[in-house]
């Protein structure tokens, strides 16, 4: 029994080893451009944790990553690799923005949930083709989803710039250039920020922090996904298919049906990824709407080992990295993109560490099993 705990500790150790290794590589990179790594890391920590606004901004930054990370993880669990979260959330965000400005006069308790549902359906819509191609035509979902990401970028560009662009931005004639953006979303569809609630708890969040109710919603979703994976029949089928499709089929599970449902569910969650930014920060969608949450979501899912709790922690870690990077860029002159290098190294080292530890544990277990039979 003591041994079991040791194995669990070893499993948990691999993310920590990965983080440590990434910190080391980051230190080498920082030293290579002539900065002092220790000092840079210290600035990163104090900037991120000594300021209340930084903490709020970290949570705000983690919010979309919780959604995209969960979306990627669900596909992973079913043995699929949804790299299309990127395109799926852009389509979802666009449709949500459309429903946000086109529908008027709805009460907030109808409009806001409706917009969220529209975003989710948009994400699922964009995941239909890849899973169809996968199941029926044998096209690997990695390539098809990447192609659909590029198609989504162009399509959104067209729809924003050429079809739905807001022509009445209230500029004086001849003054300034209008932004290439959609009309503003009705107030009834905007997601309130958490300031009022936090003030009740005695936390006075500064105004320039956009932490909103999508963060607790993301946490709730993580709980729901955990329940789905570990406590429902569908979750069991999902894990069975992801683990060994042939064995699952032999046990009477239809792998294709499970993969279709899992992928669409992944698309549904992916669709909501951009809403925290759309409905709390921007209030409209333009050509520069944040990109990359889908790819970072892959990193988050791998870091969190596809477990919802792990994903929340990894999303918070990445929120911290991004906020800390803003600090070191401003105060230490180290480019923010160091963080992307850190993320890449972290993913590589965590998958290696997990593989090595997993094998070590299996070998130990086999030895013990042999020992017990003697």
């Amino acid at each position, binding site marked *: 029994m003591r041994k079991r705990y040791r194995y669990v500790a070893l499993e948990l150790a691999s993310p920590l080893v990965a983080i440590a290794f990434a910190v080391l590589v980051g230190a080498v990179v920082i030293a290579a451009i002539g900065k002092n790594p220790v000092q840079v890391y210290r600035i990163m920590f104090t900037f991120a944790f000594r300021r209340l606004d930084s903490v709020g901004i970290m949570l705000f930054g983690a919010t979309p990553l919780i959604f995209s990370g969960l979306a990627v993880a669900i596909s992973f669990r079913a043995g699929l690799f949804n790299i299309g979260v990127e395109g799926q959330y852009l389509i979802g965000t666009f449709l949500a923005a459309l429903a946000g400005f086109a529908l008027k006069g709805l009460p907030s308790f109808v409009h806001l949930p409706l917009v969220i549902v529209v975003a989710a359906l948009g994400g699922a819509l964009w995941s239909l083709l890849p899973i169809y191609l996968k199941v029926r*035509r044998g096209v690997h979902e990695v390539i098809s989803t990447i192609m659909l990401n590029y198609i989504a970028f162009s399509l959104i560009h*067209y729809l924003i710039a050429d079809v739905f662009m807001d022509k009445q931005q209230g500029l004086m004639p001849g003054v300034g250039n209008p932004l290439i953006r959609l009309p503003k979303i009705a107030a009834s569809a905007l997601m309130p920020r958490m300031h009022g609630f936090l003030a009740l708890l005695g936390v006075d969040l500064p105004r320039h922090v956009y932490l909103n109710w999508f963060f607790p919603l993301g946490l709730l979703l993580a709980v729901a996904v955990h329940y789905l994976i570990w406590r429902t029949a569908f979750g069991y089928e999902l894990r069975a298919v992801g683990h060994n499709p042939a064995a699952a089929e032999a046990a009477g599970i239809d792998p294709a049906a499970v993969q279709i449902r899992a992928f669409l569910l992944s698309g549904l969650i992916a669709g909501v990824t951009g809403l925290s930014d759309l409905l709390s920060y921007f209030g409209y969608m333009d050509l520069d709407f944040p990109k990359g949450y889908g790819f970072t979501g892959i990193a988050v899912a791998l870091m969190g080992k596809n477990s919802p709790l792990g994903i929340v922690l990894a999303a918070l870690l990445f929120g911290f990295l991004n906020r800390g990077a803003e600090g070191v860029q401003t105060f230490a002159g180290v480019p923010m993109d160091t963080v992307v290098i850190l993320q890449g190294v972290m993913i590589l080292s965590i*998958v290696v560490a997990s*593989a090595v530890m997993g094998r070590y544990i299996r070998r130990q277990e086999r030895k013990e099993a042999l020992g017990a039979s003697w």
Partner: protein
Amino acid sequence: MVSELLASAIRMGLPVLLAALGAVYSERSGVVNIGLEGMMITGSFWGAVGAYYAGPLAGMALAVAASVLMALVHAVVSVTFRVDQIVSGVALNILAYGAARFSSIALFQKATMSPHVQGFTPISVPGLDQVPWLKPLVTNLSPLVVVGFLLVPLSYWVIEKTVFGLRLRAVGENPLAADTLGLKVFHLRYAGVLLSGVLAGLAGAYLSVEHTGMYVEGMTQGKGYIALAAMIFGNWSPVGAMGAALLFGFAESLSFRVVESAVVPYQFIKMIPYALTLVVLAGVLKRTRPPAADGIPYEREEA
């Protein structure tokens, strides 16, 4: 006109061709290389760096070196540590993106572009350049175009006719049998992955040094993934990959002409290569045959 369109298809298709040839080496040895895109990004950046400081040849050398380093990471992670090859490739792409931005800031003070760089002196095929209708095809060529198309028969010969090629295919089809016969499975897979790094690096360097004359962030535009699709469309063979790469080049060069005519919104024109990839894969995949052990890490029995 036709030969001009073909010449432009060759110029557009060359990076896809080079990367697809790389993918052939890697996949015939049994390793899927989604990281081609990242290796091309790396190649395009370091190619521009080398060309900026020391001329186009140095650009090629630096691009290949940097890209091979990325390939080495992919090989260590996916062959030695047997991590899922897709996961490793995707992580590599994220790393390459960040590393290129970071290095660009460090060297050029700009994350997204390099200064203008000088490419190779264009060459013409002597003799043929006197034939009028061949002229666009054989004059004003990047030497890399010539190299790229010479690499097609060379790769065919290496893979199909040499001992090395036979062994490479053996570990891609049945690594256990190859291992039993005393072949070094890991060494051969390393060779396949590293060769794909060489070619993807060249592909990236061609984009920045020869095609555009500078490095621009995102200039690969998914060509690494398209190259994978081209290799699949070409049924894992160098000659097939060439045909597919030319098809993609053709689609891209055609799209430029449609943009000039301004009938269809250019955003839809930009989708053509990606939509074509989807259509091609959906249409042909059932009829292709990947190497039997493609994508499966080889694991020796553990004592």
